[in-house]
């Protein structure tokens, strides 16, 4: 593999607090040099002036449907989607068929992922055997396996039994694991389709109150506080959840949390013509909730952006609202949508957004070098993403690598395109129609 020189990009590396225009050389899978005026001799040179270079992103919440629903996504299509979205590492949720509740299953998945050489895979293991919510899964064995599972969740469902959730939190303290809560009190959400309020009444759809999430957030925060264990709250969607999270953090509870791009960008008012592409769990909330989530993402109350990438077949998704499954795909639209809606509108600095896509989730998971997060420095494994934040383009879900095309951002005009993803020094994605030349660099620079 030829050595590579990325010349003149703005390097933003949250792991070192770096934000500077630099040349970055890549050799034998690693970053070999970082500096100014590096020589292009003997290297393939990419003129990256005006572009942004970041450590590869980490998506801590995706559904890859493998094993069990390979018609919706496979490990390969899912990890291909990841690198196209700039993610060089992903955590896949264990609600597969069979569920990822034992060491051999997660090891097999990690091995297969390694063979693909796309993004690193960090499977999330089940909290309970078979995701049945009755007895603990062999979390210790999954942790001790080659997959080294650190995070556990029954995502898709909450752990309903409070006693069991408490024991799960107590148990993972033994090896420093983290429990990821899917905060939903199903007795308050059952049958619901959209957020409860004005919109649910107008649409005549059964509703899911904000309370369904907040009751569970409150319970899990209390359990985390009492057990001293590490808790991560998935896909928070309401202002009330943010308030509870803020208070808990202030009390010193060991809790982290994520929000999804769709909850940060869309509200219940965006649901159009009963198109189930807007059907997600938790549901799209009010514009006030969106505002509060954005504030929390900016001030660090929310630690991470995670996509909750959930591919579904068109036969399942293009049907009556009640019958369609919950979920949207997200990896290939996450960065551009967030860049355009949050950074360009001045609500979030670009370095902060990048932090929430790299260091933030890594901390939440307890992922450290060499597994993830060496940053952009000499000797670091070259897991990098190059971003064009200048050129406007249109999101086309039909061109996604993901088998799921259920993307509410299809057709959106955005900036913030992933033009190059490098994993272990290898180019794993290069935007096909992107022009690399000094000229392009000039143009980009002029327009900045």
């Amino acid at each position, binding site marked *: 593999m030829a050595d590579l020189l990325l010349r003149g990009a703005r390097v933003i590396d949250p792991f070192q607090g770096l934000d500077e225009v630099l040349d970055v050389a890549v050799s034998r899978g690693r970053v070999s040099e970082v500096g100014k005026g590096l020589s292009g001799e003997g290297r393939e040179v990419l003129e990256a002036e005006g572009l942004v270079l970041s450590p590869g992103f980490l998506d801590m919440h995706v559904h890859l449907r493998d094993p069990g629903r390979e018609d919706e996504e496979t490990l390969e299509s899912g990890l291909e989607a990841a690198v196209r979205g700039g993610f060089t590492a992903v955590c896949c949720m264990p609600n597969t068929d069979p569920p990822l509740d034992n060491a051999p299953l997660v090891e097999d998945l990690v091995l297969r992922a390694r063979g693909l050489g796309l993004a690193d895979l960090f499977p999330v293991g089940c909290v309970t055997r078979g995701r049945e919510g009755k007895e603990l899964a062999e979390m210790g064995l999954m942790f001790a396996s080659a997959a080294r599972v650190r995070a556990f969740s029954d995502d898709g469902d909450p752990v309903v039994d409070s006693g069991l959730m408490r024991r799960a939190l107590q148990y993972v303290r033994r090896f420093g694991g983290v429990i990821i809560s899917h905060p939903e009190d199903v007795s308050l959400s059952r049958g619901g389709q959209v957020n409860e309020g004005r919109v649910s*009444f107008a*649409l*005549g*759809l059964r509703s899911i109150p904000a309370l369904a999430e907040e009751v569970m957030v409150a319970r899990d925060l209390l359990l985390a506080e009492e057990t001293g264990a590490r808790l991560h709250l998935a896909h928070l969607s309401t202002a009330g959840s943010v308030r509870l999270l803020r208070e808990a953090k202030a009390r010193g509870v060991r809790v982290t949390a994520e929000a999804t791009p769709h909850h940060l960008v869309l509200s219940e008012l965006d649901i159009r013509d*009963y198109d189930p592409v807007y059907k997600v769990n938790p549901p799209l909330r009010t514009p006030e909730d969106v505002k509060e989530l954005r504030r929390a993402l900016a001030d660090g109350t929310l630690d991470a952006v995670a996509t909750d990438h959930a591919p579904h077949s068109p*036969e399942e998704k293009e*049907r009556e*609202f*009640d*019958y369609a499954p919950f979920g949207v795909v997200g990896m290939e639209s996450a960065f551009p949508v967030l860049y355009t809606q949050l950074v360009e509108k001045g609500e979030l600095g670009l370095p902060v957004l990048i932090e929430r896509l790299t260091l933030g989730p890594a901390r939440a998971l307890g992922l450290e070098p060499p597994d993830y997060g060496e940053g952009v420095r000499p000797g670091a494994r070259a897991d990098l993403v190059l971003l064009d934040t200048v050129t406007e383009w249109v999101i086309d879900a039909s061109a996604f690598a993901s088998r799921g095309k259920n993307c509410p951002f299809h057709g959106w005009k955005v900036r913030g395109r992933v033009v190059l993803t490098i994993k272990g020094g290898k180019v794993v994605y290069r935007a096909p129609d992107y022009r690399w030349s000094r000229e392009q660099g000039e143009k980009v620079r002029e327009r900045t």
Partner: protein
Amino acid sequence: MAGEAAERRHLLDVDDLTREDVERVLETARSFSEVMRRPIKKVPSLRGKTVVNLFYEPSTRTRLSFEVAAKRLSADVLNFTASTSSVEKGESLKDTALTLRAMGVDAVVIRHPVAGTPWLLRRWLDVSVLNAGDGMHAHPTQALLDLFTMRERLGDLEGRTIAYVGDILHSRVARSGFKACLAMGMRVVAVAPPTLLPPVLPEGVEVSYDLDEVIPRCDVLYMLRVQKERLLEGRFPSPQEYSRFYQLNLERLRAARPGVVVMHPGPMNRGMEIASEVADAPHAAITAQVAAGVAVRMAVLFLLLGMGERGD
């Protein structure tokens, strides 16, 4: 109107109609209700047109009402009734839509247990779509026939007060009814126990938990059907307790204004939300609603299909 109707080829909810459109429907319905008093109750307006009744929910009365309406306009009527369970396993709505499209029908009347389904059908099907009730969302022809019935009894509706009583939360009749009544300048009160009310009601709708307090100031008492299912969901403790506070019986009716109109979309749970003596009392306009249903549906079909064919 012709041009407008040609563009607005659907009736999905009441807000598809302007106030003028509503007046036109009511006027047209009035002339059709005269036709229905003739010995030969048929006009040739929709000869050669095909109307499909696509019913995913059992509703004999609404389907019959649409069928009679279409036949009196000389349209051909096809009935497609599917039980939801077989549909969930079998042909998708999209495939059904594509089939109907290939068959070249002129209008589809759809009843479906899931809110919003007529909107999906409209996306996949290039013919007039009439919503005959979608989940708990909308039932525009019911709202129009209710207006028609109230007009016949009360004349001008401006400033009149209507109370919808019962399961507001799950009622498409109430959802479309609120819009229609507010658009006509009526005052609307929603009366129910809090567990059968939505958390937010549209602007202009007053909420009360107390039927006895509301009755004396109403011109119309609109009783909604309360399903057994709601009891199982724990939305009220027992049928006895429900009827004690929310049933319209003769004793309660005594507190009402003399000319009060009692309505119900049917089918009634006699002894639950309405006492038999009230359902059969002269105040009740319940059978008048059924008759109005045919006239109003004739008017809607006629205005959507019979007029406003584009010349170009």
